[in-house]
């Protein structure tokens, strides 16, 4: 954790979905923080609760069926979950922007992209219609849409996937937010386009001095873009700290297993080791550590007591790990 007060602080967040038959514990006490101007990643497989966490931060969860069962989210010192609707609308879009995975469906098909960007200004009561138009064109140009003035009147379906994501990013950063939440921003795109979008996000981050929360399952994207990472499993952040250190020396068996299951340029296919078993049923979490059924280091204690987050310092870098035997895991990775 950095010593400066964090811009976004998620503490022990718990989100449940009540389906009538059972209660699905999508997030079970996620804790992480994002400092001003930094890129932090939330990494995890599908169903680990990372998108639900993002939706909670943006107050987008439909309640019911969802219910925030505990914890807090603070943005710049203000409690997001407790603040009145009116105050939240001053923050959403203006101070916090959001980019979604599927840019085609997150743009309204019946309006031109320029209209939709100008609409963001209108929502926040910015400028006259003419000014909004000019600023929207500038913004389109700024996010790298060629011939922006001409494309202002084009509709989402007339753009390629990468261009659509640029439009979406333009809308999200229109008000120059201090925090951008990017929920799988590159997942639906080709690898070459992915790199361009990440480059754009990085450029905007530097220019606007905004922080980015990068929600992703892609280790490659994390290692390229994020200064810090929080690894999520079964609704909990199991390990968090500086990206380089964590990817080099994972102290949680899940992080370790995740790294081994991803092909790198050098490794051969037969050296890949998928994680055995499947993610736990979030309605029936196992007792003890949620990862123990798939963990090769699991012992008696792991099945009975869930580990608490402990701060530890590995090679001079502070990190937080939720494991009973982190040092043993570290040793196993080294050898």
């Amino acid at each position: 954790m950095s010593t400066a007060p964090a811009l976004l602080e998620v503490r022990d967040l718990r989100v449940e979905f009540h389906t009538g038959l059972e209660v699905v514990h999508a997030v079970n006490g996620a804790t992480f923080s994002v400092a001003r101007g930094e890129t932090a990643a939330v990494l995890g497989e599908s169903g680990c609760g990372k998108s639900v966490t993002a939706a909670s931060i943006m107050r987008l969860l439909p309640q019911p069926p969802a219910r925030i069962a505990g914890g807090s989210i603070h943005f710049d010192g203000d409690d997001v979950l407790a603040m009145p609707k009116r105050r939240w609308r001053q923050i959403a879009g203006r101070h916090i922007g959001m980019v979604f995975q599927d840019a085609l469906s997150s743009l309204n098909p019946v309006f031109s992209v320029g209209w939709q960007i100008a609409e963001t200004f209108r929502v926040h009561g910015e400028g006259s219609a003419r000014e909004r138009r000019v600023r929207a064109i500038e913004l389109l140009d700024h996010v790298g849409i060629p011939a922006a003035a001409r494309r202002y009147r084009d509709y989402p379906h007339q753009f390629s996937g990468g261009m659509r994501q640029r439009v979406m990013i333009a809308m999200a950063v229109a008000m120059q937010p201090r925090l951008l939440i990017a929920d799988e921003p590159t997942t639906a795109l080709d690898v070459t386009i992915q790199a361009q979008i990440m480059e754009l996000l990085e450029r905007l981050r530097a220019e606007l001095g905004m922080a980015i929360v990068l929600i992703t399952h892609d280790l490659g994207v994390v290692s390229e873009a994020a200064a810090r990472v929080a690894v999520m499993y079964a609704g909990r952040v199991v390990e968090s700290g500086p990206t380089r250190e964590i990817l080099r020396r994972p102290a949680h068996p899940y992080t370790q297993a995740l790294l081994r299951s991803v092909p790198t340029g050098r490794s051969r296919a037969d050296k890949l080791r998928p994680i055995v078993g499947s993610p736990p049923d979030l309605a029936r979490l196992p007792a003890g550590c949620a990862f123990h059924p798939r963990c090769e280091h699991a012992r008696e204690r792991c099945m009975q007591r869930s580990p608490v987050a402990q701060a530890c310092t590995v090679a001079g870098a502070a990190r937080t790990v939720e494991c009973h035997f982190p040092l043993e895991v570290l040793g196993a990775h080294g050898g």
Partner: protein
Amino acid sequence: MSAKAHGLGGRAADDAQIRRRLPWWRLLLRDRFALLAGLWLALLVLCVVVGPELLGDAATALNLRARNTAPGSLETGWLSVLGTDVLGRSMLARLVVAARNTLLVAASAVLIALVGGGVLGMIAGYAGGRAGSLIMRTADVLQSFPSLLTAVVVLYVLEPSVANLVLILAVTRLPVYVRVARAEVLEIRERLFVQASLALGGGRSHVLRRHIAPIVVPTLLTILTVEFAVVMLAESSLSFLGIGIQPPEITWGLMVAQGRNHLSAAWWLSFFPGLAIMLAAMSANVLSSWLRTVSDPSQRWRLEAPRAPR
């Protein structure tokens, strides 16, 4: 950015600009059926505006010597080209004059139903909860009575004035719009762009007005054109029963009803007003489906694409 992406983006932009240069009336000229429908409706609007002033006298002038003249004869002047009725009045003149009552009553009834039903349906779909259930149950009740029966009862109790007629026609046709609008909203509100708009600071009413309504309205307009004919016929039934438009005022529906007694002797008495109703409804339908295509950004190219040589 790579050169490839630039090339693709540039070409798409050029295409878009060519597409944009075609204004709506050029597109109308290219679609034969829509053009005919448009011309016919324009003619009807002309009749509505100036018809009674132009042919009002001719429509009421009796000529007992020329009763039930068959259409096609010009003996009693060009006005009897569509024949004359049982009192020798010109069918053509009467059709033109009746256009105003018929179309104004039908148009205002369907418009009121569209606006009222659309707003209620969208609220029911978007807000849900108790207000939504209340709206839907009321619509159920309205729909569970035969609409003609409701109209008859209400018009017997109230004065059979034009305003009451329009209102009752609108209210009995309301549930159709309520249901369709609600169903559409239920689907659209789950789409990601609604979430995106909320995330960018738009409130719920903003989302409903600026993002959901523009998608629902074209569907409602399509229903409106179908309902147009239904309402014209309902009005004629009520007029036939003597609780709708009161003679000497005339509507096409009333003319159909009055001609029914003479069908075997003079078929044209009912045929031409019936034809007028059908053509008006059909034109409205064709034009609205053309309008829907034009206003849908992802469909518009169908009209703009050059025709394949035959």
